[in-house]
Each structure stands twice: as structure tokens, then as C-alpha cells.
């Protein structure tokens, strides 16, 4: 019978957003939104890395009049950055959990 008050306390902790209990809640609204933000950021990171790499290479090409060489190098670097960055962000999220 002494179990019941404990379970009631636990339920209220899970539902409330402003938790006056532990500092590190892994459920609840702020943590969920933070997680979604980090996961969504990965997509933006990959897209922006490739786009900036390609466009930066293209802009440099126009400055120096070299043929597509610099664009291709910029694109390859962008792809590499996107991939490595994605792996690092994902492993950071997994470690954080």
C-alpha cells in the first residue's frame, strides 16, 4: 500500500513541463523539442554543407577563371564535410541520451 503514493508522484512528474524534481528529464516537452531540434538540424547541416561547398567552389571558379575544377573540389569537400558532420552530430545525440 505504500507503493501507491509513489506511483502517483511519478505520473505527475512525467506529465508536467516545468518539473520541480530532477534536473535531467529525458521525457517531457523541453527535452522532446530539444531532441527534435537537434535531429532536424542534421538535415539542414547536410544540405547547407553541400550547397555552400558547391556554390563556394563555383564563385571561386568565376574569380579565377579556372574551368569546373574548383567547383568539383568544392563540391567534393562539401560532400565530405556533410557526411562526417552528420556522423558526428548523430553520435553526439546518441551519447547525450
Amino acid at each position, binding site marked *: 500500500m505504500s507503493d501507491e503514493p509513489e506511483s502517483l508522484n511519478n505520473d505527475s512528474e512525467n506529465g508536467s513541463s516545468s518539473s520541480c524534481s530532477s534536473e535531467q528529464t529525458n521525457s517531457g*516537452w523541453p527535452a*522532446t523539442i530539444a531532441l527534435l531540434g537537434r535531429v532536424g538540424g542534421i538535415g539542414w547541416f547536410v544540405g547547407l554543407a*553541400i550547397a555552400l561547398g*558547391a556554390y563556394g567552389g563555383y564563385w571561386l571558379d568565376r574569380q579565377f577563371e579556372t574551368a*569546373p575544377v574548383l567547383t*568539383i573540389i568544392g*563540391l567534393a569537400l562539401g*560532400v565530405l564535410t556533410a557526411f562526417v558532420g552528420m556522423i558526428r552530430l548523430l553520435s553526439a545525440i546518441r551519447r547525450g541520451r
Partner: protein
Amino acid sequence: MGKLLSNPKLLVIAIAVFAVLLVSVAGGALGASFGLGFLSGPIPFISIPAERVAFIGSYPLLNSTIMFWFGGLILLFIAWRAGRKPKDVPSGWQNLMEVIYEFFSNTVDGVAGGIPKAGRRFLALVTTIFLVVMIINWVGILPGVGSVGRIESIEEWAHHHLEEFEVEVEEAHPEYNHEQVEAAALVHLLEEHGDDTFVAFDGVFVPLGRGEQARVPLNKIITFTEADLHEIEEAVKNGDDLSHVEALENIHHDIEAGVVKSEFKYDEGGDKEKAYNFTGQTAGLLVPYLRGASTDINTTLAIAIVAMFTVQIWGFRALGVRGYGGKFLVNPKKGPIAMFVGILEGFGEITRTISFTFRLFGNMFAGEILLIAMAFLLPLIGIIPFMGLELFVGVIQAYIFAMLTLVFGVMAVASHGDHDSHAEDH
């Protein structure tokens, strides 16, 4: 459902996934037929030979060659990372490389006869083929590969396609001079490819929201009529001075400009016709800067030739010239059937090379087309399960390439004595 609704994390994720699904279905090809296709883009131009993107001196550099070098650099990096400061108890990259090496060492010994270290001579090539093919397969599906490129303008496209028509015209009328051949070929080109469609670009990005229907046909980019084409043909036949023919001048001018001239109507089936107006925008085809190395027949053919050539070398080294050559050029004393079987074995070797080539090429190229088609149909999420399939197929094809090389090597090294003893048992 109760558990879903009560846990806020799961609920928000479920709602987000459902919203993304709705947006991608509405924005993709399905939504485009209802007038909603705001995310859809045109299918890129799929070409079997890899496209040239740059020149090194006078050597045309293909986009798949660049990715092959990229894959090679990645392999070198992995090897460097795994090899520095080797520990007795491995961890990290060194551990991964040791797993792969040990797996292949055991497999090679198992296939080569069960005695440990029996397959030592096969190990290097087999493991290398596995690693190289796996890395170039995987690198070929990274984001950015196949989607960022340059625009091949109408002028270039026309230049490419004129060549085959020029050859035809020259064979039919060897008396024409160069200008006449070009003009006649141009007429043929416009007649045949007048309805080919091209993508209209605005600035840097391929415009979203225009699906497959909004590709501009060629006769809206280069204005010509039937009468114009007849006029040019007549002028060519009569041997007139072609610089006076106005229609030809206009067509040349339009090809150089490469800009969409007028709006066109797309017949959406039934009674509906939708008008698209892209006047003033550059038209052309997208040539990607990067393309997976194993989607090019040259790469797979090269690896296959190396593999089969090495198999022959293993055979010669193990059995000597007479022993191994005796498998193909059989002593006539053994009867004509044995000679025929020997010749068939020779053809078998060539067939295996071609089979290697097309197995890897077909799997990877079909995978790339599949990814493109799924990205076109369901823009945001359709590609996810097929990426998983591509990863799986990449590993399996690399493994199969390596294992088949090993099996053929073991078969080549097996001495004839085994065959004879089997025949006696029967």
C-alpha cells in the same frame, strides 16, 4: 494508442512524421496531377555513359573518374588511420580492418581447401577487390552525388547529336561540302528530336514546383516550321550559298542563345491543357559533377579484367604453362570432344569477365535510377528505404565480386589430376 497519446515525445514525433508524409505526397508526382506539385522537379537526364565534366590537357575527365579517386582517397585515409600506432588489443579503425582481414583470411582458407594458409596467394587481391568495390559503391550514394552539376546548353547538346546525323548525310551524299553536310544534318536533327524536352533553369537551382510535365519541348526553344526545314533542304540540294538562307541563320542563332522563346501547352490527358510560360530562361540538361564510380561500365570492366587476368596468372604459376594451357588447348590425342570442351573453357573465361562487369554495373546503375525515380515520385521521404537497399546491395555486390574471384582462382589452380580421378570414379 493510449501509450502514444500520453508520451509527449512519441506523440510529437508521430505528428511530425505524418505531416512530412502528407507534404511529400502532396508535393510529389501524385500531387502534381492534382495541381499541387510544389516540391516536384524534373527527372534528370539519365545517360548510360558517364559524362565529361572537365579537360586535363586534352584528356576528357569523366564524373565517375573523380568519384573513383575520391573513393581511393578515402581508402588511403582508412588505411593510414588503422595503421598508425597499432596496439596488441585493437580498437577503433584498426579493429574494423582486422575484422575484415580475419573474415577474408578464414574464408579464403576455407574455400581453398581447408588447410590453414593454403589460400595465402589469393588473399591480397580478394580483400582489395572487396574493399575497393564496397567503398566506391557506398560513396556513390552520398548526398550531393548526381544532383549538383552544370547545365549542358542546347548548343552542346546539338553539337553532340549532330555528329551521328552528319555521318549519315555524308554517306548518302558524298559530294556535299562541309556546310551543306552540317545544314542537312541539322534538318534531320530538328525533324527527329523536335519534341525532345529540356529543363528550364532559372539561375542556380533547378526550379521546384515544375514536375515532369513542365519540361520544355525543343520546338519552343528553336523556332522553326516545316516550311523553314523544306527551304533549307532545297537550298542544300540546289547547292545554294547557305549563308543567305535566313531560316538557317535564325536556327543557328536560336541554338546559340539556348533560351526558351514562347509558352507551350501541356496536354494533361482528357480535356485539360495547362499552359507553362518560361520565356527567357535558359534551357538545357543537367550534367552532374559527381557520379558513382561503379555506375560506369569502364570502372567495372577494369576491375573485372584485373580479376580475371590475375586468375590466369595464378593458374599459370601453379600448374605451369603446359598444365594450365592444357586446360584450353587439349591434346588432340584425347579426342575431339575434349578439344571442344577446352575451347569452351576459353570462351568461359571471357564470359566471366563480361558477367562480372555487367553484374556490378547493372546493380549499381539500376540502384541509381531507382533512387532518382523515388526522389521524383515522393520528394522528401520516398528515398529512405531505398537508401537502405542501396547500402545493402553495395556490400553484397562487393562480397560477391570478391568471392567469385576467389572461387575462379581456386578452380584455376586445381590441377588436372583431380579431374582425372573424378572421371575414374565414375
